[in-house]
């Protein structure tokens, strides 16, 4: 049985035609199912656990990167198969998973090509897309073997499924695709050096693949994981290998 979790913003008029086209396509393929709409304070884990208990075998997330992160970070271990139907903008994870945006994603869903994906684990919760820590006076310990520090401030980005966009300068926009299947997470460290008069400028990043990492600081630093922002002084990031069963497309980037 399929359960479709729609994000709340899909009620907007501009997405009505796409959603309708998707529903028609799903009915044609014979994989239409129950529709649940996410509200502002919906607990994704409780919702999915409830649906799995009622017999749901496949949970399909309908929305964008934020919807995907919100649901999978809470319910990654629900023990069901996850699908994704990307709608609208901010859909970078869909590209990595090889899922086209809009009604064409239903074809990928119907083919049910299932892959096990690695996810990240940070301070007792999962993250599927991306984690960003800092900038701050951070100390990074990798696999309890070596320590990395910057001369000034340091920003750490851990990429799992979501590619990380960063700029060398204001004109440039570079794009890096991270492979979720390589058995390691990738951490990008960007040191910030003080400019001549005021402000900071980013330096070339360092890249460290890892399976366990600890970030410490004397002062609290901002941690953003799957869109959830917290302040921490110490975080431990681990890799949870092959934790999520996901329906992916043929053109996936791993």
């Amino acid at each position, binding site marked *: 049985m399929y359960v479709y979790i729609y994000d709340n913003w899909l009620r907007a008029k501009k997405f009505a035609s796409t959603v309708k086209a998707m529903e028609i396509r799903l009915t044609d393929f014979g994989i239409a199912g129950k529709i649940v709409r996410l509200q502002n304070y919906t607990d994704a884990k409780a919702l999915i656990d409830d649906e799995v208990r009622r017999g749901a075998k496949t949970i399909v997330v309908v929305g964008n990167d934020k919807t995907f992160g919100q649901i999978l970070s809470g319910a990654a271990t629900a023990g069901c198969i996850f699908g994704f139907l990307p709608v609208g903008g901010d859909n970078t994870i869909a590209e990595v998973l090889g899922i086209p945006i809009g009604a064409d994603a239903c074809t990928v869903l119907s083919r049910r090509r299932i892959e096990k994906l690695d996810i990240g684990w940070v301070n007792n919760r999962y993250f599927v897309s991306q984690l960003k820590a800092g900038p701050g006076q951070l100390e990074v310990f990798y696999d309890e073997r070596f320590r990395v520090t910057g001369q000034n401030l340091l920003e750490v980005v851990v990429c799992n499924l979501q590619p990380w966009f960063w700029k060398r300068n204001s004109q440039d*926009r570079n794009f890096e695709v991270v492979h979720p299947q390589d058995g390691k997470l990738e951490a990008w460290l960007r*040191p910030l050096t003080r400019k001549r008069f005021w402000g900071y400028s980013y330096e070339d990043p360092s890249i460290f693949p890892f399976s366990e990492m600890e970030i410490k600081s004397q002062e609290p630093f901002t941690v953003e994981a799957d869109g959830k922002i917290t302040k921490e002084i110490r975080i431990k990031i681990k890799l949870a290998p092959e934790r999520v069963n996901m329906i992916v497309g043929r053109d996936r980037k791993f």
Partner: protein
Amino acid sequence: MIFQKPAVKQSDFSISAHPEEPGAIRDEVETVVGPSVNVEGDFGSEGNIVVKGTVSGSVRTSKHLFVEMGAKIMANVKAGTSKVSGEVKGNIKVKDTLELTATARVLGDIDAKILIIEAGAIVSGRVSMPGLEGVDAKAAPRLARLGARRLSEEAPAVTL
């Protein structure tokens, strides 16, 4: 079209060990120590390592290690192959080829199968390479002296 936002260039980004080959070995490069980053401890990787910053402790990889110009390694180094353009203070043990470019400065012993030294590179330390295991280390200077004496006996004396 004038006001169109610049499109995302997918193949634009590359962290290349060799600047003349943009994007050529992106798939092979795994660990990059950027400039103004300090690494302390037992720094090891299964893949290629590119060092642009400072590393102290020990460095270990079974694949390629590239020490860029301006980079500093204060550690013993073990690698499959290596190209050094920066400064290394410590012993270097390379399984296959070690290349020292003109800007390289090595203060330590070198152990490599193949050693390439470009003119201008500075090395201070003992160099050992496999292939001379049959020659007795103590006998080598004596043999050299004998050879030199024999040469001087054979060669006619030249006086100006």
